[in-house]
């Protein structure tokens, strides 16, 4: 589903702040995989996801999504393959627009936007049903401005928007990091539910090792732009936080630097 070959990306090239983040990264994800990604601060997790999303162009390398070479495809064009949820709950929705308007925007991802009315007959009923599955009471608040929702509600809505068009790949970048533990658990539950119902392939960055172990069928750990651990199948099911910490120090030769993760 996703294939990355020899990906290089540096920031602030030619300045004293030059940062060579990705140096020849190779990475593939099979159809239907749910990959959780952990790693210390600055390990390059967001950089990897941003490269896939096309936020900027990589310095070199190739990225295929579902067999399509998207390396030179602009961010808005490759959006048709992707569903994205960000760390900041403010970032994934249009605050001044209504819940149903946000959903309608997402429903037209990858489609031509013409002069037809933004919400077609029958569409609203579909949204009511989908919002109902979130269990947050949003199904009765279709015309509420999204800016009035809580962070957790906004993340749940963004998740729903991201999965609305059955994307080839779901990109979740620490989408529960800004939420309190209870809300985070609820949003993760919704994540699992949507991934399962829609048979999505997903990449989920998380700062929480327990969540990384509990969710998905494959776990990778990044350090200094490299994938230092890649555990799938039965091995992943047996994984513990202690074993993971241990493997990290062996793989990287240092202590795990993200103390938020050891929870």
């Amino acid at each position: 589903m996703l294939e990355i070959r020899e990906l290089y990306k540096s920031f602030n090239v030619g300045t004293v702040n030059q940062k060579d983040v990705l140096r020849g990264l190779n990475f593939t994800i099979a159809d239907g995989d749910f990959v959780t990604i952990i790693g210390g601060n600055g390990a390059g997790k967001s950089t990897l996801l941003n490269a896939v999303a096309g936020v900027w162009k990589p310095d070199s390398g190739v990225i295929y999504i579902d067999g399509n070479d998207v390396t030179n495809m602009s961010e808005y064009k490759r959006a048709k393959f992707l569903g994205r949820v960000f760390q900041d709950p403010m970032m994934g929705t249009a605050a001044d627009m209504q819940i149903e308007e946000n959903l309608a925007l997402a429903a037209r991802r990858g489609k031509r936007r013409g002069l037809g009315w933004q919400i077609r007959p029958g569409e609203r009923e579909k949204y009511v049903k989908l919002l109902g599955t979130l269990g947050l009471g949003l199904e009765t608040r279709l015309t509420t401005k999204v800016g009035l929702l809580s962070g957790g509600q906004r993340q749940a809505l963004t998740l729903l928007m991201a999965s609305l068009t059955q994307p080839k790949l779901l990109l979740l970048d620490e989408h529960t990091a800004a939420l309190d533990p209870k809300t985070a658990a609820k949003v993760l539950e919704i994540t699992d539910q949507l991934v399962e119902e829609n048979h999505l392939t997903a990449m989920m960055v998380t700062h929480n090792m327990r969540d990384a172990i509990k969710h998905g069928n494959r776990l990778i750990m990044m350090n200094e732009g490299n994938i230092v651990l890649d555990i799938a199948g039965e091995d992943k099911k047996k994984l513990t936080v202690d074993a993971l910490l241990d493997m990290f120090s062996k793989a990287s030769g240092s202590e795990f630097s993200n103390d938020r993760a050891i929870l």
Partner: protein
Amino acid sequence: MALLGALPGAIAQGMIWGIMAIGVFVTFKILDVADLTVDGSICTGGAVCVMLVTRGVNVWLALFIAFLAGIAAGFFTGALHIFLGIPAILAGILTQLMLWSVNLKIMGKANQSLSARTHFVLISQLSPPLAILVLCGFLAVLIALLYWFFGTELGCSVRSTGCNRNMSRAQGINTGMTTILGLMLSNGIVALSGAMLTQYQGFADINMGRGAIVIGLAAVIIGEALTQRIFRGFIARLCGVVLGGIIYYIVYQTVIFLGLDTDLLKLLSAVVVAVFLGIPYIKKTYFSKVKKEAGGHA
């Protein structure tokens, strides 16, 4: 008494500025871009209108062509901003400067008159009450069309671009194109107001747009202050903006009537707008206390 007698005229003028303010609203409020093309495109609309109508072109067709001219101006600013990466404010200033020459070339000289006695025009200061009536109809159609457009899929993608560019791109919206589209629409409306103003006052002048953006912003700010308290619908907001234009113009006329040195008017307008634009920042920076909140990241 003289002031009251001038009231219909002030209202008509205010409504024309209200049309322009709706154009400013489209960029400043919906698209979240400060576009300074306005000062030039309002005159372009007037220039196109005066030249066409005095040559016998039907006034409605002249209005339409003025609209297209404004759209072209907006496209130019958008292209400078999006295709060449020039900051929006600077792109607007560049287009505005270019339009100065273009407008002079359109009119052939700095001032062209359009007499309501010899040509058929929609509105004229010879009859302000009639002008108000025509402008009411004009505004009703304009607001209805905008309500429709911003309710369509395309219109919504312009709105979401102004609201959150990152999210819009993630939802597959070409934010560059929607930004250009918004600038085109805005300047088209501004040019229409220029064409109406020219008919009303009976001439187009190369200086007629100077400071227009400040008047537009003032009208938008007054309008938003009005509608934030009462209703919040889209149509109400646009009506508020028009009302803002009218209030601005009545205050303007009153100040003149009270004998204030007219040389100071632009200074006053700019100070008032600066204060209102600054209020949200002043509140946030100097008058807010840090909340003591428990917890943080989990």
